[in-house]
């Protein structure tokens, strides 16, 4: 799955079944709306990057998926079962690593392993020991004495040892140093590849998600704004720059050789800057935006890759490819802040 340069191999075979499927899920806390018709699907065997700003609804979604909360409306399917609240039987097939590890401070890693193992029939003690060794977690120390990063790694070892079908990761690497973050993410990638399980990674760290995830969903204000494979996402969302009006070239001098072909009637303005996609020449009166395009924010538009390929733009228009962070910003940044900036 991982190519030689460390990026994700996104050409893996994807089973058709969804490990997670949320349809029009709503959840409110008093007057505050946390999820406002969220829909998403996570396919079995993939790492799904769930991107969103703080307060976008990521943790609420995770808490619904871990069975801590239930949805007010909408349907939630976890590992093929439609549930109102994730039952205990299903929880046994789910491993969870949270942003903060609320372990019993007096328990050692070893004791935590023994305690947690009692709740999972499929607990693999050898695997726990292996993972703890691999992640360099000292099992003899009390969790109180462990650093934040080591506690998170211990959380991952605890979550993976029951060999779960679904791994829920709620901003697990927040606060970790780059090395620990890389170790954590590498292990997740390896485990997903080896075991064929599914990982749902909530984060607001775009680079991390881009490195790890096969597919990405961007949530904002409790709604899914866009979801898809990363390349597909980048092909769907681009910036359109409308350049200066085209300059009419002076009439060409009469050919010395009357047999020479005539020059084109219109020449496009300044040469496209590096990285810009040159646009085919088009009549001046083409509509903007072309049909099938949806304005995301500012000059960022969204359309299917096919629509992008076939669209005709006015002369002088330049198309800018975006990276995942730009896409995330386009969907998650509020207009008010953008205006102020």
């Amino acid at each position, binding site marked *: 799955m991982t190519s030689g340069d460390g990026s994700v191999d996104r050409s893996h075979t994807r089973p058709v079944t969804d490990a997670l499927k949320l349809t029009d899920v709503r959840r409110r806390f008093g007057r505050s709306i946390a999820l406002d018709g969220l829909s998403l699907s996570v396919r079995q065997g993939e790492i799904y990057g769930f991107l969103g700003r703080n307060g976008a609804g990521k943790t609420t979604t995770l808490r619904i998926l*871990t*069975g*801590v909360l239930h949805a007010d409306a909408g349907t939630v399917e976890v590992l093929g079962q439609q549930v109102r609240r994730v039952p*205990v*039987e299903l929880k*046994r097939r789910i491993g969870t690593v949270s942003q903060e590890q609320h*372990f*019993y401070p007096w328990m050692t890693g070893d004791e935590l392993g023994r*305690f947690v193992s*009692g709740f999972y029939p499929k607990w693999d003690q050898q695997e726990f020991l292996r993972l703890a060794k691999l992640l360099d977690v000292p099992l003899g120390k009390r969790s109180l004495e462990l650093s934040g990063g080591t506690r998170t790694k211990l959380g991952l070892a605890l979550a993976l040892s029951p060999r779960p079908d679904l791994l829920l990761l709620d901003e697990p690497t927040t606060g970790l140093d780059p090395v620990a973050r890389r170790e954590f993410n590498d292990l997740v990638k390896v485990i997903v590849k080896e075991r064929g399980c599914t990982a749902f990674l909530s984060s607001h760290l775009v680079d991390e998600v881009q490195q790890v995830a096969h597919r990405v969903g961007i949530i904002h204000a409790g709604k899914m704004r866009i979801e898809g494979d990363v390349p597909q996402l980048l092909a769907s969302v681009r910036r359109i720059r409308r350049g200066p009006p085209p300059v009419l070239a002076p009439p060409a001098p009469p050919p010395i050789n009357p047999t020479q072909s005539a020059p084109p009637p219109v020449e496009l303005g300044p040469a496209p800057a590096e990285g810009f996609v040159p646009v085919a020449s088009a009549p001046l009166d083409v509509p903007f935006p072309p049909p099938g395009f949806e304005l995301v924010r500012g000059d960022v538009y969204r359309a299917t890759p096919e629509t992008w390929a076939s669209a005709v733009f006015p002369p002088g228009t330049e198309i800018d490819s975006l990276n995942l962070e730009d896409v995330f910003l386009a969907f998650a940044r509020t207009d008010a802040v953008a205006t102020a900036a």
Partner: protein
Amino acid sequence: MRRLVLKELKEHGWVLAVLFVLFGLGLAGLLSRDDEDGGRFAALQSFLWTFGPVGALVAGNRLVVREYGGKTQLFLEVLPISRLRVAVTKWLFGLGWVWLSGVTAWAVNLWWQRRNTIVSWEDALHALVPALLWLAACWSLCFVAGLLGRHRLLFWSLLGVSVYALEEVAQLELRATPPFHLVSDVLSAANDWPAAVDVLTCVAIIVVGLVTGLVLAVAGEGSIASALSGRMTSRERILSVTVVLGGFALVATLNRNRDRPAFALESVKPTESPVGPIGVLPGEGVSPEQAQGLVERVAVEVVTLVKALDFPRLAGVYVVSQRGLDPDVILRVPLGEKDGVVYRANLADSRFDELNLRYRILHTIISDHTADRALEEDRHWLLDGLATYWTVRGDSEGRAMLRRRAAASPVSLSVESVHRWSETFEAAGDCFGMAISFTLVDAAIDELGEAAVIELAKQTFRKPHKDLRDFFTERSVEGQLHEKGLDFAQLVSRAEAARRNSGAPTDYRGKYELVSQGGGQQKVRFSLERDGAPVMRWRGLSASTGPWQSGVSDSEPTRVDARSGEAMAPATYTSGERLFLAIEVDDAELKCSARVMQAWTVLP
């Protein structure tokens, strides 16, 4: 569930062990005095009243508060175990915890009793069943309180206020009320099953506690208990303190305004005066005629004072003659929940100061009516002075005597000494204190007339405030005097001048000296002389006080009755102790016990 129980045992086992040791020591102490208390399970009964609730409180704190407050329940939330199962496990574990201590205490008590007496198993169960019910009820309440998180202290406070209100205001005898009755003497005697109503009440508390606790743990997807477990905001803290203090204030107000039953002396047929019954229990050495004479004198003063100040009818005024008391000792009898004024004094002794008794009765009537607000420093002089004045109101000889006493007083009057009236009165003693307070009121009457001074007293000695507005609109005594055209400093100055002109100051010279006994121990030697000659009959008073004490009560000092010019205090004091010292002499001319020396000292 097994894992959870093992976890709880590992987490709290050591606390359980420590508690067991402490409870064991406590039980041993209770068993050792078991024979004095009576009842075969008296030790168990005491254990249940004290250690039972403590054990439940500790269990609630460890099992519930710690889990939620430490947020470790968020760790449990993501594990495949339901919230209900966690809560039920904790409840059962806590129940096991308190029952284990209860059953152990019961078994030890049973073993202890069976060494000497026969206790049937049925009787033993008579004690065990209510004990277990009581402990389960305590635990259920602690479980709920634990789930209330940061509000548990408020819960306990309100419960405390409620219990206090039930006992004080509603006059409920708690030990006879379910569920408390369950651990009453019935349990101690262990010869019958507990009453059905006690059992049902206890079961109701257990069920309500359990259900409420489970609802709190599960409802709102556990968010209620989680939210409650956080720290209090400052607004919540202020609200909690206000609610608790407000509750106590309300109960205290209700209690104060409650009509308490009047005290009555069965052996005395009191005289029915227009303001209430007044009676004297003669006792040995006091003839019925003498008693009746005192009743009449007291009645005249009480009736006129009560009517003059518009006080409501009194519950009763009684004097009990008690031969064993010193003639200068006049003690108020505490009546508990009964209303009335009862004094004990040695009426039969020839040196008994009747004026002092009558002054005290009037003083008490006024201070009781104002709920002791008349004792506040700014008006205390008026209370003392008015009460004294009333005892000699129609008695010119009495007034002359008071003036002579005031003149003899070693304590003089100044604005500062009147503002620090309690200290001044204590330094002067009853005889001189009454006299100088009389001088002040006498001077005020000279300036304003009796009616104006009575009006001043009526305004000053009203019932406690009905609401807060009274507090802000209340006028001070000095302010009222000023409104009537009399400056307070001027009044004091005139009273002092009148005092000096009324006679000669006392010529007693009292002294004390500290006599080292070695090892930091010291004794106090008093001496008294007059005109250079030692005085033969007098008293030295001494009392050790805490640094917080500003005065001593009548019964507090130890006394030495001197028969020569010197006398050694009977008690030995240690270096660093703070002593109150005074010398009093029964003065034939002044006809009272005059305090001729008073001092406070810290032993070097």
